[in-house]
């Protein structure tokens, strides 16, 4: 009998152990079901999507960087990692390592006007097609959108 319990306990500990020590990985966007956890919009412009991976393994997805910043302002759980995508290629990048362009005339899903790129070269490629934007770091993005967000609501 006690062997059964041993198996059960083992199974549970494996299950709960799974996500704990693994590095935080971005999760693919599924356009069938994924909606922004802040504004409820279904995520269709997948290259503009962003993600926050929580320490407990849960994933919050957003359709726009602005929504992610909005969410971080009121986050209640411990966050593990923040991811944005290169708008040209869709590659996931850690938010801190990405380059950003700001131009209020850029189209983004929630009109926050901030777009993320893997590096400056990719950003330049975008601005030659869509007009110049001012370069920002992630901290500047948070600062800028934080102000914008509080004035918007």
């Amino acid at each position, binding site marked *: 009998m006690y062997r059964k319990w041993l198996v059960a306990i083992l199974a549970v500990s494996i*299950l*709960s152990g799974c*996500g704990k020590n693994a590095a935080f990985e971005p999760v693919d966007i599924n356009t069938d*079901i994924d909606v922004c956890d802040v504004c409820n919009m279904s995520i269709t412009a997948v290259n503009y999507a962003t993600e926050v991976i929580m320490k*407990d*393994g849960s994933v919050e997805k957003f359709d726009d960087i602005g929504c992610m910043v909005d969410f971080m302002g009121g986050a209640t759980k411990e966050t593990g990692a923040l991811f944005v995508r290169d708008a040209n290629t869709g590659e996931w990048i850690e938010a801190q390592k990405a380059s950003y362009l700001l131009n209020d005339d850029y189209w983004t899903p929630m009109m926050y006007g901030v777009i993320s790129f893997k590096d400056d070269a990719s950003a330049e490629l975008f601005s030659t097609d869509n007009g110049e934007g001012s370069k920002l770091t992630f901290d500047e993005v948070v600062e800028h959108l934080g102000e914008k967000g509080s004035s918007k609501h």
Partner: protein
Amino acid sequence: MTSWTIAKQEFKLALRSRWLILMAVLFTLLSVILLFFGGQPVVDGFDGFTRQTASLLNLSLFLMPLLTLLVGGMLIAGEKEDGQLVLYMTYPITERAIIFGKYIGIGLSLLTVLFIGYGTSTIILLFFGTVQWSITILFFLISALLILLFLSIALSIGFFVSGRLQALGMGLLFWAFFVLLYEFIVMALSMVISAKSVLLLLTISVFLNPVELIRVFTILFLGSGTVFGPSIYDFTIWASSWVGATMFGVTALVWILCPLGIAHWILRGGRRI
């Protein structure tokens, strides 16, 4: 002497038992009440997961395992107390044949009771002109499957315990575990483990409990898997595919055969006669 002889004998005995008649009346009554009062469709022609389906599903999930566990377990335990089982053992017949015979016999009598229950309520409702055939048939099949799944558990309980009272207690215990406790345990577990493993846990949990198996797959077969919400999306898609349907069939079969195997083991060991 074969399984079939035992089955016929068992069928006769079971239909004479007061338990079964009581259950038949109770079940007819409940299904009429639910079908009639809870079952008025809001708008005609919708065949997904509705309030009616939900309440009928819950009624089946609560009642069928209880009825089966109690009746099945107590019939066997009763025969044990009366010495009937020992008598069988003296006949030139294998333990396997006895078990299959009992399973078929009691199974058929329970299915008969079920048929009478559904038939009566359908006839009663026909007078009011509100019978939804697809739903009635669907729930007859669900209940039948629940009976077949839980009967084998009931038999192994019956062979294990020493008397009717023990069978009653153990039947109730198993019922409470499968129908109520199990879900609470999985729910609690799913709230403490890492969010990444939740889907895996829920997936496994469906197959480890016949009640869950029937509940989840009924909703899926109704094409209403979206009711489970987006966080279960991957499971819903997988379970709705033919792989999922096969898993459902195989698991149901395993849930019938395994407890019968245990019963066989008990009977063969002769420990509990």
